[in-house]
């Protein structure tokens, strides 16, 4: 994002697009914070705020995709520019879906609050939700700074969210065995836990995009060790700027 092009207009377009993407990221982060607040306070007030923000996230996704299409058609970018634009498209999609998950959490919290089963371990999910929200923030920071080290840290920490999810499912099962009346709200909680786990995965996808932009290496579906090797390697020949 910092290299100069012959056409500074192109530079401006790329910078503007990145700004819009990160603004959308900020919106999704706020959505996650509010979903977390809804979870923490058992409040449908915060839940309503998340549902209202959902529309803005969707609108931004469409606007960014539109700008992206126009830039690709007009500039026919290559090398790092092409990777950047492809990654912006992927990050946008992942952010939108993370926003969807936040809305899902908000809807479930509303349902649980209305059903009035306060004894369920709603608070256990706070930790995981907080962790997932921080992963998204970390991945977006890495994207803004094109920082592969922070991106790799995000990949590693996603495993912690997955562990939280497994532990929570085991715990829910004990609640459902204890009291069959808890099954319906427990299923809602399970969906919340799943949504949180998915948010962690979206953060991971964004982090993989950062590595792709900087190193030109596609590290999706690769082990952590392979990813680390790809990060420490120089950018692949032929993938750099001609």
């Amino acid at each position, binding site marked *: 994002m910092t290299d100069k092009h012959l056409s500074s207009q192109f530079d401006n377009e790329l*910078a503007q697009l*990145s*700004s819009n993407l990160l*603004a959308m*990221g*900020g919106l999704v982060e*706020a959505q996650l914070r509010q979903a977390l607040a809804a979870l923490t306070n058992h409040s449908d007030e915060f839940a309503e705020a998340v549902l209202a923000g959902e529309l803005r996230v969707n609108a931004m996704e469409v606007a960014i995709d539109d700008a992206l299409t126009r830039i690709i058609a007009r500039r026919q970018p290559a090398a790092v520019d092409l990777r950047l634009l492809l990654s912006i498209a992927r990050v946008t999609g992942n952010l939108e879906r993370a926003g969807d998950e936040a809305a899902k959490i908000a809807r479930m919290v509303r349902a649980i609050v209305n059903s009035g089963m306060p004894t369920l371990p709603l608070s256990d999910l706070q930790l995981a939700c907080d962790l997932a929200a921080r992963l998204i923030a970390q991945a977006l*920071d890495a994207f803004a700074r094109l920082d592969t080290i922070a991106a790799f840290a995000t990949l590693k920490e996603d495993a912690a969210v997955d562990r939280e999810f497994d532990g929570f499912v085991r715990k829910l099962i004990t609640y459902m065995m204890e009291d069959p009346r808890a099954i319906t709200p427990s299923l809602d909680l399970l969906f919340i836990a799943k949504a949180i786990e998915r948010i962690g995965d979206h953060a991971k996808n964004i982090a993989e995009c950062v590595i792709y932009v900087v190193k030109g290496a596609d590290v999706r579906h690769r082990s952590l060790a392979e990813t680390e090797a790809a990060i420490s390697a120089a950018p692949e020949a032929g993938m750099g700027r001609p």
Partner: protein
Amino acid sequence: MNSLLAALLLLLAIAAGLWVIDRQRARRFLRWIADPTASAMPDLAGAWGLAAAYTRRALGREETRAAASAARLDTLLTALDALPDGILLLDREGRILFCNAAAAAHFGLDTKRDQGQHIAHLVRDPLFVTWFSWSGEPRPPLEMPGHPDASGQPVQLLVQRQAYGADCLLLLSADITAQRQTDAMRRDFVANVSHDIRTPLTVLAGFIETLQNLDLSAAEKARYLGLMAQQTRRMQALVGDLLTLSRLEGSPLPSQGERVDLNALTAHCAAEAFALSTRLYGPEAQHLRIETAVDFDFAGSASEIGSAMSNLLANAVRYAGAKGCITARWSRDGEGQARFEVTDNGPGIAAEHLPRLTERFYRLDKSRARFADDADSGTGLGLAITRHVVERHGGKLQIVSAPGQGSRFALLLASARVLARA
């Protein structure tokens, strides 16, 4: 003729030689002047040597001046870094030119690496982005959540924006977390005081109306008057505690000169505790063991230390319950600090309450520790007063407790105020 030619040739040869030497000097001089450093100056004779010497002198002056202004800039940047408030200098586009340490902590930035980054790329909170990109005037300061501090606690920021120079921007951020907490505490305090004063007043008003309107028997009248007396005692205790608190806040620190006889004071507080225990649970129901023999004295305010000790004992009596077992004693640790420790075997306190226990009107549980006579329930200010007193005496209040394991409250008092008994 021939000799003339020879002389001419010789002159020519000498001139050519001089010319070559001069060319060489010029070349060396030019080579040096392309990247002049004082130490690498060529040793040249003649005009070129003079030129080099002058250049070197000018160069030296310039270098000294540059070093001085670099030092000034360094001092200035160090000073900016030491500021408690955050300072961000941004260019016209909003890219970071400079960021001091406080701003980096407030926004989660890196002072070195994030130079040249657009501020809105890293501070993505929609509140901030909207506020920052809004071009209208006037622009009120923005209150927003900042990057959590080192211990992960949330931080509240007040951010201001100021244009400077040729379309550069200055962002100032101040941490107002403590201020907001104080505001919230003050609001709670006023609400609690009003509530705690209104409740006995409502009860009193009800009884007074009854007494005025109904023709009651003497026994009933006596009962009602007794209840009214209870309520007035409760209000008296509350107002007394409030006055104590405000006096503690406003008055100068207790003098070092006043010698407190800890033996007598402890005996007095113990007697109070026994009386309270008997009133609440009947005689001998609770097991109280208070060691009143103390082999040192203390410099400070007797009334303040006395009220701190009474508060701890009264709390233990109230919360330990009818079969409670309470021990209290003074001791001195290895560093000479005095320590008054009250231990009970009550229900204990959950970890989340511990840090807030000394807040005014903070109660563990609205239903617990309420007694028939409301005046015995405590005002909710006891530990706040205790903490104030201890801190005024250069000590601290230590609380150790866990649910089901009883509690241990300890007054730790600075060794400087402990007086050995003659």
